[in-house]
């Protein structure tokens, strides 16, 4: 049986893991390779490393980290942040990443999804969407780290991403991100019923029940950062909890 995945997300700046709250108040936490190995040993199913480094010169530091992570861990990992061309995909895949996540750059140039999927396979293209509720009962796509509203409907964009060849959608709810009051269940339920590719829920995990709820409404994976980084929820305990809730998980 296919299990639901638990995915710690590590934001990396200048080679160090940080975590923003509502995309602000960034605080240094740990070494990405060490933390990645720790999560892997704990039973994390995948990892996401998100490069938040602003300057282009520092990109090489990040590629070096991707290589070190690939040498150190034996579970799949995704790289996101600063990917805007097919060549960027190639670089991180050759450094050992399994998947690449695109966000703002795909909104700007949707064909990037198709080109990357054709060249490297749909399995490695993750479309990451920052979505925020509007007052019409739907969700808008935001870009630039949640600062700019594009006015695009998030569900329509997710469907288009699937049609263009994305292998997976990571849906990050800006409303719930950093608040720790649970994932956006309605958004995840809608997307899971409308799409045929897997959905990763992101934004809002505060307690173990939050993971159970979003996985029960159809998300295939749940991503979180601070609850793991600050050891509020050990992954081993989370997997046992989900197992007791009859949610299929891989336990180590």
């Amino acid at each position: 049986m296919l299990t639901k995945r638990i995915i710690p997300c590590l934001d990396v700046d200048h080679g160090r893991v940080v975590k923003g709250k509502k995309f602000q108040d960034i605080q240094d936490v740990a070494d990405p390779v060490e933390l990645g190995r720790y999560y892997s040993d704990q039973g994390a199913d995948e990892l996401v490393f998100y490069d938040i480094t602003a300057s282009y010169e520092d990109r090489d530091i990040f590629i070096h980290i991707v290589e070190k992570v690939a040498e150190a861990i034996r579970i799949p990992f995704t790289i996101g942040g600063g990917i805007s061309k097919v060549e960027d995909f190639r670089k991180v895949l050759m450094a050992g990443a399994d998947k690449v996540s695109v966000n703002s750059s795909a909104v700007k140039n949707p064909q990037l999804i198709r080109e990357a999927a054709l060249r490297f396979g749909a399995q490695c293209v993750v479309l990451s969407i920052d979505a925020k509720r509007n007052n019409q009962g739907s969700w808008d796509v935001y870009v630039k780290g949640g600062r700019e509203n594009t006015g695009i409907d998030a569900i329509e964009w997710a469907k288009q991403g699937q049609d263009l060849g994305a292998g997976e959608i990571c849906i990050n709810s800006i409303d719930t991100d950093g608040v720790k009051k649970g994932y956006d269940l309605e958004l995840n339920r809608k997307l899971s019923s409308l799409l045929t590719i897997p959905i990763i829920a992101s934004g809002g995990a505060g307690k173990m029940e939050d993971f159970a709820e979003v996985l029960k409404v159809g998300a295939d994976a749940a991503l979180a950062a601070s609850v793991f980084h600050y050891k509020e929820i050990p992954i081993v305990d989370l997997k046992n909890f989900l197992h007791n809730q009859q949610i299929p998980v891989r336990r180590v």
Partner: protein
Amino acid sequence: MIAIVDYDVGNLKNVYTALGDVGLSGTITRDKKILDAADAIILPGVGAFSDAMDNLRKFDLIDTLNDNVQKGKILMGICLGMQLLFDKSYEDGEFSGLSYIPGEIIKFDAPGIKIPHMGWNNLVINRDSPLVKNIGTEDYVYFVHSYYAKPNNFDDVVAYAEYSVKVPAIVQKDNVIGMQFHPEKSSNVGFQLLTNFKEMIS
């Protein structure tokens, strides 16, 4: 020495690194002499079936693979590399494969399932093989694929995963082996499987 066939189908270093974990020395190569001299050959691969076959032809590797398989050398395909071992694939058309194991590659089509089949799925043992020593139904491995193998003879399946159908996960016909999932990304279970692979070739 294990030859990892280099035919431009993505990053092969992860396979190389995982072989090192179990004490096997890999060489990423498309040199026929090295392939002929290797103790075993690994055919990795991600991407599209037809592109991968085109690349094997482009680098003139098919005869070398055929010769080595005929000699009885162990060849292991991983992920797309496993699918290439079959007669043909219906991925975006109809394309012939290497025909070492009779069967076809077809797309998942059950209603309501997510495609790709992505994530950790447990293995169900279908028949005995040294490949699945110390492996049981509580063991999970990492899959990512939208097409799966439909062998003519289900006895060629050593282990399968349940995902709307019985998805062949480990196949074996004599000296030809395939793993649909990624052992190099399957944590401790992947390590055990590669250890079993090592014992088979030594």
